[in-house]
Structures are given as C-alpha cells and as structure tokens.
C-alpha cells in the first residue's frame, strides 16, 4: 500500500501540526480540503451492476444503479430483504467487484481498487470487532496499519472512545461488552480514521427498540458534528424517515425512488414505494373513479384519513368522503388502525389517535358502517411501474 490513501484524506490534521486537540473538537472544526471540489459528489455510481453466480442460478443483486451521494449527506438505502442494499454497500467498500458500471469516490474512479485503497470505512452489521484485541486495539487498528505514531494513535484512540462514551472500557475484550457498547466501539473504530465516507450496514439491527431509538439520535448527532458522508442501510422505514437527509428506496436491485423523507413518504413515485414506506393506501381503477372522480392510481396516508360512524353528521363539504364497513381493528397503544372495506371496492387503512377512546371502545367498531373523509390535497398520484420515471 502506498501513501496515496493518506494524502487522499481530507483531514488537514493528518499532515499538519497535531496539537492535542480532542477528536470531537477536531472533527467538528474539520473543513473539507480546498482542492476537493464541493460540487463533486462524495460517491458517484454509474450503471452499477452485480451478478452472483452463472447460468440459470445467476442473481442480479444490483441491476443498474445510478446514484450521486452528496458530500456530508446522510443517505439511507431503504428496501426489503434481498433488494441489494448490502451488495451496493459492499461494492462501494470494495469487498465485491462490480460486474459492470463505475464507482467514483470524490471524483476518483475506484471501481477496480482493493478495499484498503479506498477512503471509506464500514460499520458492519455484526460489528466485526477483532475478538483477540482489546477495545483500544480495535479502535487503534486503522491508525496502526496506516503507521500513525504511537503517541498520536493513543490520544486519538482515547478521544474516539470518549466520543462514544466508552473511554473507561478500553481494556476490555469485545466479548465483555453489551450489544450497544459493541456497536459504539465499531463506530469509533471507523470514525477514528476520519474517512470521507462512512458506510453503515444495519448497524442498529441487533439492538432492542429502546437502545435503537437512542442510538438513532446519537448517530445522527455524530454525523452532524463530524460532517462525514454517511451511507446507511436499513429495512426499517421509520428509522430511514427519522435519520436521513435523503432516502434511496431499493427494490430488486434498482432504485425505485430517491428523495427526501418527505418526498418518499408524501409523494411516493411508484406503488411499491407507497407500500413499502408507510402503509399502501391505494385507490385505482373503478374505485378511484367512483371515490375520487378521476382515473389513475392514488395514495392517501392512513393518518390523513378521519373516520366517523356513518350516522354522524357529514363533514365539511370540500372533504372527500367514502363509506364502508370496518373489517379489522388493530389497537397499537397511542393510536388505532382501522381497515375499512369501501363500498366502492378498495380497502383503506385509517389511523386514529386514541384521544378519547380506549381499547374496549375501538373494538366495538368492528363490523360497523363508517364514513372516511380526507382533504383532497393529501391524495398523491402514484405512477404505475411501467410509466415510472427512472430515479436519479
């Protein structure tokens, strides 16, 4: 390995004087190197394809992905199991070689480069901490490999561990840590190298819900502080919506839609996105004609729909409304989901906050005739797969 990966780094401290600045202070005040073109994306994927196997068993895990990840952005790859998210991440990191297409990091084509020649670091789903090394040695590994001096290595390692609030556990082995602590060691081990890009493959997947929510907030805060580009993989749509600057929704090795959380949630481009991000509440064909008075496929989010018993007075005149029968009632604590079979033929889910009602009250709705109504502004036209615009 030459010195190239080191000079490629945008952290000026690596070459400049290194007063004992704390990692956090240092990372917060770190500015992109002047020669890095700000308009140039941190990652640029063009026509990326990956095929596993040959002959009839071949799988196109990634089937043509074009993607620009902006510098400093938090981008989430969201999609169902087997949609190719991990494979895209492994292609960027260099663990897999692309079948076709190119990968650029900061404007440099790295498609054929080995992982250790790419200025990215990965937080693995199983954390991949070295079991035979202490926490400190794990975190310091990248610096040791890159021949950073002993004194600087020790101080940067300690600062990175302090940064994830594990400064006191440096002597432990990974096996002696809890899941959440391991996750933070993996994060510190990647961040201490100050890469241009951090890749995270479902880093919170193994944590329980409480810890998961806490780590979501922490991870987002750290990303904002260090200003590193994060590419984050998850199949949890809520996680994607809360953390991301932009979301790329994957299906079958392709990007179905790329946009902000609000874009993919409120303006899903395809029925798949409407269904995967949130509940698909689709009206199409005859049902759309009858309820909405127009053709095409339309989506209305469950929380935008209000539900009244059919015998109650009708709502404001400009509201859209439809009648039907409650088929299913799901009590979820703070709210209740009602699945309603419309007289017009489709079925819609309505989410109602349990402001006045309790679980026994809502159960009484099962089988009752109800009226749904919503503001027409919340109807979003969803393109059919055949006519969907290709995402960029």
């Amino acid at each position: 390995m030459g010195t190239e990966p080191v000079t490629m780094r945008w952290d000026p401290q690596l070459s400049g004087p290194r007063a004992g600045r704390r990692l956090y202070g240092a990372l917060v005040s770190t500015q992109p190197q002047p020669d890095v073109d700000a308009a140039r994306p941190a990652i640029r994927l063009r026509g990326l394809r990956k095929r596993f196997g040959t002959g009839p068993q071949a799988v196109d895990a990634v089937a043509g992905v074009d993607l620009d990840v902006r510098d400093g952005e938090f981008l989430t790859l969201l999609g169902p199991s087997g949609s190719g998210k991990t494979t895209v991440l492994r292609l960027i990191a260099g663990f897999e070689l692309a079948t076709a297409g190119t990968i650029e990091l900061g404007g440099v084509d790295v498609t054929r480069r080995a992982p250790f020649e790419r200025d990215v670091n990965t937080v693995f789903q199983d954390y991949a901490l070295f079991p035979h090394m202490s926490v400190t040695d794990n975190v310091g590994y990248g610096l040791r490999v890159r021949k950073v001096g002993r004194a600087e290595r020790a101080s940067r390692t300690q600062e990175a561990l302090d940064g994830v609030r594990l400064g006191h556990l440096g002597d432990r082995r990974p096996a002696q840590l809890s899941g959440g602590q391991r996750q933070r060691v993996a994060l510190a081990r990647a961040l201490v190298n100050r890469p241009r890009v951090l890749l995270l493959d479902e880093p919170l997947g193994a944590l329980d819900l409480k810890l998961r929510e806490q780590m979501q907030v922490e991870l987002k805060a750290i990303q904002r502080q260090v200003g590193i580009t994060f590419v984050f993989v998850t199949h949890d749509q809520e996680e994607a919506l809360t953390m991301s600057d932009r979301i790329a929704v994957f299906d079958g090795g392709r990007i179905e839609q790329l946009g902000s959380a609000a874009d993919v949630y409120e303006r899903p481009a395809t029925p798949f996105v409407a269904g995967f991000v949130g509940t698909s509440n689709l009206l199409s064909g005859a049902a759309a004609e009858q309820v909405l008075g127009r053709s095409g496929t339309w989506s209305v989010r469950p929380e935008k729909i209000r539900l009244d018993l059919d015998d109650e007075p009708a709502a404001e005149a400009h509201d859209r409304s439809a009648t039907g029968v409650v088929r299913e009632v799901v009590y979820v604590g703070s709210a209740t989901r009602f699945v309603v079979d419309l007289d017009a033929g489709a079925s819609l889910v309505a989410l109602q906050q349990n402001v006045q009602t309790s679980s026994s009250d809502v159960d009484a709705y099962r089988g009752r005739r109800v009226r749904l109504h919503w503001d027409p502004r919340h109807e979003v036209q969803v393109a059919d797969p055949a006519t969907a615009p290709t995402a960029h």
Partner: protein
Amino acid sequence: MTALPPAGTSVAPGVPAGRRLSAWLSGRPRVRLAALLAPPAIWLTLVYLAALLALLTTAFFSVDEFTNAVTRTLTLSNVRDVVSDPAYLRASARTVGVAAAVTALCTVIAIPMAFFMAKVAPARSRGLLVALVLTPLWASYLVKVYAWQAMVQPGSGVIAWVLRPLGVDGPGYGLMAVVLTLTYLWLPYMVLPVYAGLERLPDSLVDASADLGAGPWRTFRNVVLPLAYPSIVAGSVFTFSLSLGDYITVQIVGGKAQLLANIVFANYAANLPFAAAIAIIPVLITVAYLAVVRRTGALDNL
C-alpha cells in the same frame, strides 16, 4: 375405565420401559452422570493407563544375561544407562528435531491449503476438498512409506530424476527423507484442525481489516494468524507426537539415522526393560509439550 396409577409415581401405565427409565433418570442427575461416564472410565483405566503403568514399571526391571527373561527386581540401572550415555541424548535431540521440522513443514503447507478450502473455494466444493485431504488416510501406512522410498531413492528415485536436469542430487535415504515422508503422512492431521479454525473465522473480520487499510499480508498476520493459532497448535499436537513415535518410516527411508522409536524397536526383543526406559523419553517429551500447549489455551479446540 383405566385404573389410577399407584401412588408415588407420575408415569402413566402403558408407557414403554425405555421412556420410563429416562423419566426416572431425568430426576437423578448423579445416577445419569455415573451411567454415562462408567464405560469410558473403565476403558481408560484398564486399557490405557494400565498399559502406560506397565511400561513405566518395566523400565525399572532387569533382564537375565543368559535366558533374556525379565527379572522382576527393581533397579535403576536401565534409567542410569539411558541418562548417562550421550548417544541416547543425541538420539533424543535428533528425534525432537525431526518432529519439530515435520510440524513446521506441515504448518507451512497446511495454512494456505486450509485457507483456500475455508475462505476461497466456493462453499459447495468444501466437502469435496475435505474428502480429498482425507483420502490418503484410507491407504495403508506401509504402502505410503514404500511409495516414498521410491520417491527418495538415490539415483533412480522420482525426486532424484526430477532434480537431475538441475544438476542436483535427490535427498537419498536419511533424516531429510524421514522428514519429507512424515510430513506427507501427518499433513491431514494439521490441515483439518486449521481448516475447522478458519471456517469458524467470520469473513467480516477479514473484510474489516481490509476496510481499515490493511493489505493482505497484514490482515493475515494481525487477524487470521492470531485467530487460527489455537487450531495450529492443536494440529501440531498430532504431527509432533505422531512423529516422535514413528519407527517404520525411519527404518525404510532413514538410512543409518537412529531415532528413539527405532532404538526401542531394535532393543525390545533382547532387552525389554531397557527398551521401556528409552520409550519413556518420548512420553516425557509429549507430556512437556502438552503442558506448554495447555498454557496457550489451544487444547480447548481439540
């Protein structure tokens, strides 16, 4: 109507005897443990330890000069002879040297082989590769040693024939031939534990090391080797102790070389107590080796 079961048993009538026995045992862990351990414990004490004990005591007997019969009076003379004669010390050193060389060669050959099998070859072909490594074990030991005799034969041997264009002579009979033959014989005993150890090593650790900037060699040294180390030591227990005890290979391809095991073989007919005294040396060496190995924690992997 079925009759009520007699008081004090919870087992329903009509339950097969085997099930009833296991139900009875499940409440009595000590009985269960004793029943489980008794057969191997009896085997171990009677067959294994008794033989070792017989070896130890025989070493302190002597032999009648005229009839060659073993006299059962305790004497230290055999042990004294073995310890005081530098020839036996040299033979011990030579034997340990051969065993160490065989172990080192096996390690060097086995690591890349096992790495290929566990990490490079497609998962489908792993079973086949393991079978291929095992196939030589199905052939008779003697046949394999005679095959190696043909390989190393001075002048007309396969190795000599291959090396002739280079103007080099083959190894001929001697210690070198012994080391080569034993390496061939014991290699599977090193490949299998190392393969099992590498198979257990998650791929993501190798990826993580490369991700953090380490080239292949550093990854091997810092991650693969330390984690495979216990399995290498486990394999070395086999290659080392098997080499210490081998005498047929030495006789067939060893030329004039004398190792402990064939000194034992040469003496046992004429002077069994003396042969026993020599045979204790490899036992002691093996015990010492195991004691060292135990401290590395590698025995947990056997």
